[in-house]
Structure formats: structure tokens, C-alpha cells
């Protein structure tokens, strides 16, 4: 079921109403089974695959604490093989087999590529990561296994985060499910606000930017100018940000309607002044997951076990470059089985390494100056990172990047004038909203100026709600569904 649909809004209304009427135990059953219904609305035949992952990790984690050291490892291996096996089959089999065939053919073999029609189960990258983290945490002794299957099932399948995150840790969610949460009108209204905000970002902004981005990326690259490359990278950067943060807002809001709190997943990422800062602000739960379950173990550093903080705390270790490179390649491949995503990962590694090298030059300057310079440098660099994310092939992405270094390519514009205008407005609007939300609103949120605070918020909602009403339609899927 997709969030930007009437079906979801009706579904949510029913679930929230029943949830607050039900007893504690019934609530858990309601969440578990409604989550299966939510998932089944996409394709019912993929529910068993998800349940397989849920059941295997449930059983494995129950037996891990009771087992001897060697057995523990074997059980962990069972969990990893199951989850990564599912992920490999559905997401990477075609990619790796075709890549292997391509390499063999390059060396003279004559092998036909595999023609398989494998449908990627929606959300598989998210729920497998969540179940893996659960079992690994039990293995590490960080959490006790949950014996109540339904409660554990609620943690993995909880519908707001099931198909596109945030990637939650058991420690953050299971304790919330363990108690009967008292009804709070504040939760309801705060949840509604987040949903409204998310729907606005999705149906009004992301979905209306999408055709411009599609049009732009369909241009042949030889006809594209450097200004077109810049514009498209910014435009897609905003599209993917609005789209994905919209999903997170709606997920957080939906959970809040049920009294469950999720950690934040986005925090104005394009205001970042360094790569480290960016990953503290973009898809925070994933970068924290990667930090705790891939990078830190690979680099032999103690894990942190919280889905906040991003990858930041890890990137300071310059000796761990090899782990860093591997981590970013995995991060790239997590997003999609394509060399373009590997290229995206490599771009980020290079950015981090360059940052480490050059940031020392600015240590004598004041924090605010470094911050401003950081934003000015990081914003275009981060936007350019989206080029391989959206390109049809790595060659296309590289060709587009090359254009920006050729000064002769700055002479023409290949798209309608509106495209450049909209991109410019988005950049300005992003910073204006950032200032209002992060600087002005917190200052107004006190007894003295509460009237101004309410007026400002009212203005926002009066602007957003009619537009959601007018533009609401399941026209486009969320981009992160494909990951």
C-alpha cells in the first residue's frame, strides 16, 4: 500500500481508531495482522517471503543465548544466510550473473546473459536489514531475544516503516510495544502534522518535480550543457529528498498516531557543511545501521547500537580507508543492483577522503565561517553525487560529470526556461524553510511569542492542506521503494 493514496488514509483511520479502542494484547495482533494486510496490498504472494525472514530470525535469536559459542556463530550464520540469501536472489542475482557474463565475454568467452524475470519484493532491503540487526544484537548480547512472536513480528513488520524505513533497532521499538501506551491527544495531532507535511512534500513537490527530472535525464548527453548537468543534479537532489523525507515524515507521523515514536531520519541534509554532517542528516537510520553492522565491525571499532548519529562517528579513522571504501560500495549496492550505485558509493568515499585532506586548511578560521564555506562547497558536491543515482549507466554519469569541467559546455541551455527557474526557486525555498523551521520557530515556541508561533504554523498548514487535497493521487511510487 502506498502512503499517498486514499486507501492508505482510510486504512490508517481504521487502524488508529481500533488501536485506541483495543486492549494491549489485541493491539499487538492488530498491528501485526494489519501490517501483513498493508504489505499484501502490494503483492500478496510476497508475504510468505517476509514471514520467512521474520520466523527464521525469531527462532535463531531465541536459541542464540542458550547455545554454546560455536553454536551461536552457526545460528547467526543461519540468520545471515537466510536474509542475505533472500536479498541476493531477489535483488542481486541478475546483476551479478550478468556482470560475470560480461567479464567472461570481455575475456573471449561467448556466454549468453541470464534472462530471469525476478520481481524485487518491495521493502526487502529494509526488513532484512532490520531482522539482521536484531539477530546480531542478540548475538552481541546487546539485547535479550523477544519470546513473544507477535511482539517481535510487530517490530519487523510494523507497517509505517515496513517498505522504506526508517531502519529501526529492536532496542528502540520493542520496549514501546511492551507496554500499553496511554492515549495522548498530543500524539494524534503531532502525528497528523507529520503526515500532512510528508504528503505535501510527496504529492505537491516531489511528484511535480518528477516530470522535469525525467525529461532532463532523457536528453542525449552530447546535447546537454554543463548548466543542464548542474540543474538536473540539483533538481533530482530535491526530488529524491522530498520524496524520501516525505516517506519518513508519513512513517513517523503514522507511528505517532499509535503512540509509537520513531527516531528522525532526515534533518535538512543540504545544509550540511561536510560529508560527515551530511550523513548525520540524510537517511540517518541507514547510515547508522551501516556504521554499526558493517563499517565499525570491519574496522574493529566498538559499535554504538543506536539508529542516530549517522556514519559520522566512524569517519574520523583515517587508517580504516579500506573498510571505508568497502562500506561505501556496500552502501551503494544496497541502494540498487547496478554499477551506477557503486559509482555513487565511490564518489562519496572520495569526497570523504578529500574532506579529510583539505578540511585541515580551514582549522584556523572561525566555526561559523567554516560552516558557511562548508555549505557552499558541500551543496553542489552532494547534488552532483545524485547524477549516477539517476543516470541510466555509469558511462552516462561519468560523461555528465566530465561536462561540468569543460568551460566550453557552459554556453547553452537544453531545457525549458521553467526548469532552471524552478530549480532556483527550490534552492532558495529550501534555505528559507530551513531558517524558519530551525531558527525562527524554536525562538517563537515560548509563552511570550506563542501567538506568533501559532500564526506561523497555521499559515503553513493553510497553505499545505488545500494543495494536498488537490494533488493527492497515487501518481508516483516513492523512489526508495525500489531499494
Amino acid at each position, binding site marked *: 500500500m502506498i502512503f499517498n493514496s486514499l486507501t492508505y488514509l482510510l486504512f490508517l483511520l481504521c487502524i488508529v481508531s481500533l488501536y485506541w479502542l483495543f486492549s494491549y494484547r489485541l493491539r499487538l495482533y492488530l498491528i501485526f495482522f494489519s501490517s501483513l494486510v498493508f504489505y499484501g496490498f502490494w503483492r*500478496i504472494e510476497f508475504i510468505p517471503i517476509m514471514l520467512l525472514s521474520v520466523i527464521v530470525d525469531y527462532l535463531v535469536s531465541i536459541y542464540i543465548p542458550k547455545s554454546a559459542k560455536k553454536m551461536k556463530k552457526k545460528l547467526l550464520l543461519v540468520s545471515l544466510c537466510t536474509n542475505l540469501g533472500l536479498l541476493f536472489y531477489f535483488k542481486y542475482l541478475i546483476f551479478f550473473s550478468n556482470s560475470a557474463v560480461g567479464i567472461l565475454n570481455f575475456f573471449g568467452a561467448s556466454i549468453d546473459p541470464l534472462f530471469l524475470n525476478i520481481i524485487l519484493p518491495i521493502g526487502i532491503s529494509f526488513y532484512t536489514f532490520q531482522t539482521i540487526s536484531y539477530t546480531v544484537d542478540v548475538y552481541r548480547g546487546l539485547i535479550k531475544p523477544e519470546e513473544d512472536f507477535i511482539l517481535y513480528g510487530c517490530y519487523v513488520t510494523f507497517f509505517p516503516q515496513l517498505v522504506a524505513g526508517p531502519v529501526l533497532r529492536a532496542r528502540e521499538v520493542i520496549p514501546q510495544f511492551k507496554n500499553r501506551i496511554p492515549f495522548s491527544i498530543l500524539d494524534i495531532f503531532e502525528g497528523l*502534522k507529520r503526515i500532512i507535511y510528508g504528503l505535501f512534500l510527496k504529492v505537491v513537490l516531489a511528484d511535480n518535480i518528477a516530470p522535469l527530472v525525467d525529461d532532463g535525464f532523457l536528453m542525449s548527453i552530447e546535447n546537454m550543457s554543463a548548466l543542464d548537468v548542474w540543474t538536473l543534479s540539483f533538481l533530482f537532489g530535491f526530488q529524491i529528498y522530498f520524496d524520501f523525507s516525505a516517506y519518513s515524515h508519513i512513517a513517523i507521523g503514522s507511528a505517532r498516531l499509535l503512540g509509537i515514536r520513531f527516531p528522525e531520519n532526515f534533518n535538512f541534509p543540504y545544509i550540511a557543511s561536510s560529508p560527515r554532517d551530511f550523513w548525520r542528516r540524510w537517511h540517518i537510520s541507514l547510515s547508522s545501521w551501516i556504521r554499526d553492522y558493517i563499517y565499525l565491525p570491519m574496522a574493529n571499532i566498538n559499535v554504538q547500537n543506536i539508529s542516530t548519529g549517522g556514519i559520522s562517528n566512524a569517519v574520523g579513522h583515517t587508517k580504516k580507508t579500506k573498510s571505508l571504501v568497502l562500506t561505501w560500495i556496500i552502501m551503494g549496492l544496497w541502494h540498487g543492483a547496478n554499477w551506477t550505485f557503486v559509482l555513487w558509493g565511490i564518489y562519496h568515499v572520495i569526497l570523504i577522503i578529500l574532506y579529510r585532506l583539505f578540511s585541515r586548511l580551514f582549522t584556523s578560521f572561525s566555526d561559523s565561517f567554516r560552516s558557511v564555506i562548508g555549505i557552499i562547497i558541500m551543496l553542489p558536491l552532494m547534488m552532483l553525487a545524485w547524477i549516477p543515482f539517476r543516470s541510466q549507466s555509469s558511462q552516462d554519469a561519468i560523461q555528465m560529470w566530465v561536462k561540468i569541467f569543460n568551460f566550453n559546455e557552459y554556453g547553452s541551455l537544453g531545457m525549458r526556461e521553467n526548469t532552471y527557474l524552478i530549480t532556483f526557486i527550490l534552492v532558495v525555498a529550501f534555505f528559507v524553510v530551513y531558517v524558519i523551521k530551525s531558527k525562527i520557530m524554536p525562538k517563537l515556541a515560548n509563552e511570550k511569542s506563542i501567538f506568533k508561533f501559532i500564526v506561523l504554523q497555521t499559515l503553513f498548514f493553510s497553505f499545505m492542506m488545500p494543495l494536498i487535497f488537490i494533488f493527492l493521487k497515487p*501518481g508516483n511510487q516513492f523512489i526508495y521503494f525500489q531499494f
Partner: protein
Amino acid sequence: MYRLNRPVLYSVAPLFLGLIISFAGLYLFYIEIDPNENLDELAIGSENTLTLASIDKKKIHCEGGLREVNDCINDYLIYGDSDELILWLGNSQLHSINQFQLGDETASLILHKKLQSKDKYLLTFSQPNANLQEHFLLFEYLSNRVPITELILPVVFDDLRETGIRDNLQDILKHKVVIRELKNTEVGNKILLRQNTNKSLEGHNDPLDGTEQEGVEEYLNNALESMFDIWGDRSALRGKILLNLYKFRNWSLGITPSSIRKKIPVRYNMNMQALSAIIDSAQRKEIKVLVYIVPIRNDVKIPYNLNDYNDFKSKVISLDDSGLVKIANMEGIVPANYWGSKKPTSINSKVQELDFMHFNADGHKALSNEIFKALKAENDF
């Protein structure tokens, strides 16, 4: 009973107030929409009237998508009294009459009547801002459905700034014959690639296709439409918002119909390739082609970059004017007084703006006469 404390009140108040203001604003915005207002007419300007010709309920000029095209074709197949079918493809210039008065006829109707007397049947299809890629697609589709003997094809500098295939023509790309024809050309392959890329981009095709949610969503949508008119009219509301944004843009940046437009190289090249592809395809099928540069008002400075426009004209004129292809420059055939004006396209402006695309009924007469002359010269009738 739940007691509202201050933090709750601070949270609830903006949402409630916002909801009330939203409803009121939406209502006021909604009642301003004229149910009789045709969005097509809105697109061409309110001084222009969408006029689609038909004779004895037989449609001879259709505007819209594939469905409308098929309506016209079906009428021809049923009532068509001539084997010599002439096809005229174009943009809103063909279906709009500026300062319309009762009894006014479009060039397509006038020409149809004239050709009828020569035992020829004229079918016209036009779409606002139709680009040559769309014409190419439509031509391939139609030439495989009906025996066309001649094609009349206007080239409009403005429309070379457009690209892509609009939604209501997309179904043409499902026809195997059309796909085969497109694959024979570079531009055809680009159109197909674009289509396939759009399909393959998850998130940009219908996300509910083939899902269990599809039926439920449709049911809920229909239910809301039957309960609340405003729900069904959301597309009109969307159109109105976009129109207001367009006016706001024009106002804030001082853009008018007279503002100079430059060519957009990528789109321009693709459309010129489509033009060549149409001509090549027509020649292979032994269909005569009359390509003409459309009339433009010559009493004021034209709103195009002159270098770009002159380059465009010389490129069109230098097309291979031999065999079955005839090139004509009809830029100056519509006198200044036949051109109209249109309501301001900017917020708060009361000044009528020049219309560079649409002319009155006399202009239509002039156009049909010129085209008839050109056809006559070619066909010797």
C-alpha cells in the same frame, strides 16, 4: 474526559485553524471555476474559440488524443466518399478562431469543402503546441490505418521548443506497426527509448498497476467523486493553480507573448529530425507532402530570436523540395488586421496582449486559400 493543556492547545490550534482556512480558501477557489470553461480554450486564450469542424455530424477535424483521432477515422471509414484522403496535422492554429462569430469557419472546414468538390477528402488533426515528434507518431499510425494520398504539415517555430509524446497519444506506441516504423529512424528510436525509460523507471509509471490496491483505490476515488463534486473537479483545480502560477511567473518576470523566445537546441534538433523522418516515411509510402512554414503576424516584431528563426526558416526551405515533397513559406499570407489579441496572461494586467498564433475567420480563409493553391499546383486539379 481529556483536558486540553497548553502544549496540546498549541499543537491543536494551528491544525484546526489551518483546516478551517483551508476549507474556506478551497471553497472560494472552487466556486470561481466556471464549469462551462473549457480547459482547451483556457490554453489557447479566452479570445480564441475552439472550433472543430464537422459536416452532417461527420467529424472531419478532431482535436485531442488517440480516441478523438479514431472518431474522425471511423467517420471517414463509414461516410468517406473519396479514395483520395488528404491528412492535415497541426497545432491550435488550425482549431482556434480569434474573435469568433457565429458562422465562422476554420481553414480545415473551408479546405475540406473545396477539396470535396475535387473528389478529395480532408481529415484534420490538431493539438495545442503539437510538436513534430507527435506528428511523426500520428502520421505513422494513420498511414497504416487509412490510405493517405497527401500530407499537409505545418512547421511552427514555437512548437519546436516542445518535446515528448503527450499522454493521450501514448497508446499509439502500443501498435507493433508503428514501433517497427519508428525503429527505422534515429528519432523514432529516441522516442521509443524515452518511452521505455519512462516505463522502466520505477516510481514514474502507475504505481498501482497490477497491485491489490488498484481496485480499492479506484472504488474509493469513484465513491468520493459521486459524493463530492469538488473531488471530481480536482483536475480543474490543478489546472487553475498551474494557470495562476503561469500568470504569476509572467507578472514577476515581465513575460508577455511578445517576449523573445530562443530555440532550445536539443528539442529543436529532435523535432527537425522528426520532420525529416516524416518526409522520408511519406516518400517511401508514396504519399505527397506539403510542408509549410506557418503564418505569423508581421505588423509587429516577432517574439523569436531572429537568428534562430531565420536559421529555422532556411533549414525548412532547404529541405529536399523535389519529387513528392513541396515546401512552402506561408509566413506572410495572413494580413495584420486578421490577427487578434488575447486577454492578459499576467496577474493584475488589463492590457490586451498580442496573439502571435491565432487569427480570425478571415485569416482562416486566407490560409485555406493558400493551401488549396499549393495543392492545386501540385496535383493539377
